[in-house]
C-alpha cells in the first residue's frame, strides 16, 4: 500500500522550489519536544544555504501540491550548520537537519528576575515586589520585572507561557497563589514545569496553534482531536513500560506569606 499512496512533497528554500534536488525528506515531532524537526537529503548541497528559511509542504492531491504546510519557516539547527556527512553512494549526499521556528521563543533575558504578584496593576505591585524580595536570598539579575494580576496558578502559568510567546490552555487545578519569584537562571519553560510539577499535569504543544495544553490527570481528555487507526494499517508495535517512582506519602509545605 505504501507505494500506492500518493504523497506530494514540496520543499522551498526562501520561497524557491528546491524539490528536484531533494532525495529524501523527513519531518517529525520527537516525543516530548516543543518543536518540530526536519531533515532533507540532497546531492546538490552547494545550492543550500544555512541562513535560509525552509518551508515543507505535503499533500495527498497532486493538483494541489501545497495543501498542508508541515514545516513553516524551518531553519538549520545551529549545531548542524556546515556539517558534512558523505558516504560512498553514486553521488555524494548530504543531510541537512533543521528545526521549526518556534524554538527561538524560549529565550529569556539572562539578567531579569520576574516576580508574579497577586495584586492589581499600579504602584502596589512595586510595593509588594519589594516586600517579597526582602525575604528572598536566591539569585537575582540586574533588574526586577513585577507582573501583576497573577492571582492563582492558572494566571501564573498563562503569564509565563505568554512571555515565551505561547498561547496557553490550562485545564489543571486552580489554586490561589502567593507571589512567585522566577530567578534569571530559570527559563520560562523550567519555571512553568516547577509550578505544575506537584499536580502531575500532562503537557503538550500543538504546533499549528502554537499552544501549550496543560491537562489534569483527573479529568477526561478534551479539547483535542481524536483519531481512530484501523489495525490493518499497523505494521508493528513496540511497547515499553514507563517506570515512575511511586509516591506513597506527599508532604506539602506552604511558606509563610510575607
Amino acid at each position: 500500500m505504501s507505494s500506492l499512496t500518493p504523497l506530494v512533497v514540496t520543499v522551498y528554500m526562501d520561497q524557491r522550489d528546491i524539490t528536484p534536488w531533494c532525495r529524501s525528506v523527513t519531518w517529525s515531532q520527537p516525543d516530548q519536544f516543543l518543536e518540530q524537526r526536519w531533515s532533507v537529503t540532497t546531492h546538490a548541497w552547494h545550492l543550500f544555504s544555512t541562513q535560509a528559511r525552509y518551508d515543507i509542504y505535503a499533500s495527498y492531491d497532486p493538483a494541489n501540491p501545497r495543501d498542508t504546510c508541515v514545516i513553516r519557516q524551518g531553519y538549520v539547527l545551529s549545531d548542524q550548520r556546515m556539517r558534512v556527512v558523505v558516504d560512498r553512494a553514486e553521488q555524494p549526499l548530504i543531510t541537512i537537519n533543521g528545526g521549526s521556528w518556534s524554538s527561538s521563543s524560549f529565550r529569556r533575558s539572562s539578567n531579569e528576575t520576574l516576580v508574579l504578584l497577586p495584586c492589581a496593576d499600579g504602584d502596589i505591585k512595586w510595593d509588594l515586589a519589594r516586600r517579597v524580595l526582602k525575604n528572598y536570598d536566591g539569585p537575582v539579575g540586574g533588574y526586577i520585572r513585577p507582573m501583576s494580576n497573577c492571582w492563582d496558578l492558572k494566571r501564573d502559568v498563562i503569564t509565563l507561557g505568554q512571555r515565551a510567546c505561547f498561547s496557553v490552555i490550562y485545564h489543571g487545578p486552580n489554586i490561589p497563589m502567593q507571589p512567585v519569584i522566577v530567578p534569571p537562571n530559570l527559563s520560562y519553560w523550567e519555571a512553568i514545569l516547577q509550578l505544575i510539577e506537584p499536580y502531575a499535569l500532562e503537557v503538550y504543544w500543538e504546533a499549528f496553534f502554537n499552544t501549550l495544553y496543560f491537562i489534569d490527570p483527573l479529568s477526561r481528555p478534551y479539547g483535542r482531536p481524536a483519531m481512530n487507526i484501523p489495525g490493518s494499517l499497523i505494521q508493528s508495535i513496540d511497547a515499553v513500560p514507563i517506570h515512575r517512582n511511586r509516591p506513597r506519602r506527599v508532604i506539602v509545605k506552604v511558606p509563610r506569606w510575607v
Partner: protein
Amino acid sequence: MGLIPTRTTTHVLEGYEDQSLFTEGNLRTVVTEGWYTHPSLKDDMLIEREHTTINQFGTPLHQTKEEWSYDRPGGPPKQFIKRIWTKAFIPGINTARSLTLVQEECTVYWTFAPYAPDALSYRRQVDAYVIYNLKPEPHFEFDDEGKVVLRGMKADGANEDQKRYHIASGKLWNEATNQGTTVEKADANQGAQWVKGVIVEEVQVVEENDRYTQWGWRKYALRPDDIEDIGPNYFQKESFNYRLDVPVEPPEISVSNAGDDGVRIKIKGGGAVIKIPLTTGTVTYRRGPELYKVFRKTIDEDDRETTGDPHGLWLPGEAPPPVRRSVVVATFCGSYDGTPDPDNGLPSQTNYTEPDDPDPLPDDDWRSIGTAKNEAKDINYETGRGVLFDRDVTAGSTYVYAATAVLQDSESALSNQESIEFDGAEPRRYRISIRTNEDGSLEGDVIITDDPAAAVDTDIGETVDFEIPAYVEELGDYGVVLDTVILTADATIDVEEETFSVTPANMPELWTPESKIRITDVIGPGAPDATGNVAPHRVKGTLVSFSGTTLIATEIGADGHLYPIGSIVELIDTSGAFREGDGGRLGDETGDDEEATMEALVLAIGKRQGQRNRDESFSIDIEVKIPLIGLQAGAEVVIRDVEWDAWGNDLWIRSQVEEVPWILRGWSITVSREADGAFKCDGTKLTLAQR
C-alpha cells in the same frame, strides 16, 4: 592576626578575539578570588579579589586588587585595601603606557558595639594621580598657597614643575582619561602628581537606646568646598531572646465521638510554671503553651471501604479506570508439542494474582495527627485550652490519643492517654495531617492509598516533598473583600450559628447564602497567635441569610470572644471569579477551582500524584502504512481491531491490542525518491503514551 584565603576560585570571562585597530581590545577578563572557608561559617568570607583585563596581545591592560582583613571568622572587617594598576596615559608619569599603580584606597573600620556588624565606623582614603594643566611660567601667588595646601599638596617644597600647575584644572586620572582631556604627547603642557587623600570619607557610628546611627562626611581634595554629608543612616537593634530552662508541664486531654467530624480531642492546661524568688517572697508566673501537638495510636482498625470516600476521588467516570490496561494481552499460550491446548498451558500473567496478606499488622506507633492552637485569649494568665478533630478514623476502630504542650522551643512530655472506639458512620480514605512549623509555614501530609478495592494498605512507596507558594487561608488576611458591614450590637460568639445586628450593606445583592464571611474585632487589643504575633480576634463563617440589618451566619469557629459594636464583618470572595482581572478574556477554559485551604491543596496534590503514578503505563511506537500529515501532538488515538498470530519453535502465540485511548506524543514521516524519480512514503511512525 589576619585570615588568609584557604580556597581560591578563578573565573574567566572570554571577550572577543578579533583584532582591533584603534583599541587594545578585550581578550578576556580573569577574576581570581580568595576565600576563607571554615565549618562554623554559613557563607565563605571573601579575603581577596583580583580582577585583570587582558588585551588582544595577551598582556594585562587593567588590574584591580582588593584585600579584606579580618580579625576572626565571622567578625566585622578591620581593613579594606584596593589598588588599581592600569596602562592609561598619565602625563609625566606613565608616558610609555606600562602597567602602573595609579590609585590606592584604604578603608579602616572600627566599632565599639560587637553586636552591630552592619553598622561600622570607618575612614576611607583614596590616594591617586591627579592630572594638571601647566601654566607657561612657574607662577605661585600668595593666595594660591592656601589652595594648594587644601588640595593635598605642599606649598613650601614645591618644585618648578609643581609651581606651574593650574590648580583649578586638576582632575583625577580616571576622570581625565574618560573625559578625554589628557593630551597624549610627551611635550604637552600637562603634569601629574600623586595626591594623598584625594577623597577622604569618615563615618561615625553612635549608639542609642534602640538603634545605631551612622553619620559622616566625604571630602574631595580637588573640590574643597564640596563636602558631602553621609547619612544619617539608622540601624535598628535586634532584640535577643534569653531562654530559661523551665520544664513544660504536659496538658490533659479528653476525647469524644463527634459524628461526621471524627473524634474530638479536647486539650486543657499544660505550660510552664516559673518561680522567681524575691526578697518579698516567691512570685509564681504561669505561662500557657502556644501549641498542642496531638498524637494517636491505632489499636485495631477495620478495613476501609471503597464507598467511604468523602473527597470524591473514586467516582466512576471522572477518572480513567483504576486498573491499568496491559498493551498486549496474551490470549493463549500453547503447549510445547505444538497442539493448542489451553488447559495444559502455562499460567499467563493475567490470571495469576498473589493472594492478599490475610492478617495485616496493626499500626501501633504514635503518629502525629496535627497541632491545635492554644485558644486562650491571654496565654500568660489563662489556663490553656485547645480542640482538634481527627477525621482520619474508621467506624468501629479503637484509637488511643495523647498530646504534648509546646512553648517556644520546649515540648512537654506526653499527657494522659485516652482510648476511644469511634462510632461514626463515615470512614475516611485519605489520611491528612496539617502542621504549623516554627517559622510560620504550614505543612500538610497525606498518605496516598492503594487501589480502594484492595483490602490491605501497604506502606511501601516513596515520600515526595513539594514546597508550593500557594495562598491558603490560614496564612493571613489576603483575600478579596467584596463588601463590609459593621456590627451595631455586641455579640459573643459561642455557638456555631449566630444572629448579628449590622449596618445596611452597600451591595446587598452580593450577600448570597453560602458565601464566606469574616468577623474581625478591630476595637480590642487582640491576642497572640501560634507564631507569637499579636493578631486581632477573628472568626470565619458561612452566610445563611442577610436581610436589611440582620445577618445570620453558621459554621463559625466559636471562640467565645465578645465582638463589640464596631467590629467589621467582611464578605470574602472565594470563587476566584473576581480575581480574573481580565474578565475571562482569555477564553472560557477554566481549571478546577480548589478551595483556598491547606486541606484542599494537600488533597489536590495527593490525588493527582496518586492517580498519575499509581500503576505503570506504557509508551508504544507503532508504524502505520499510510502517511498522515496534519498530525498534532496531544491527539487522542484509538487503535481498532489489532490481532496477531505467530508461530515459532513449536509455540503458537496469539495476541491483541486493547482498544484504549492513547495520546500522540510524537511522530515522524519520511519520503524518499525512488528509481523512477517520484517521492514514495513508507508510512508514519507514531509515539503514543498511555494516560
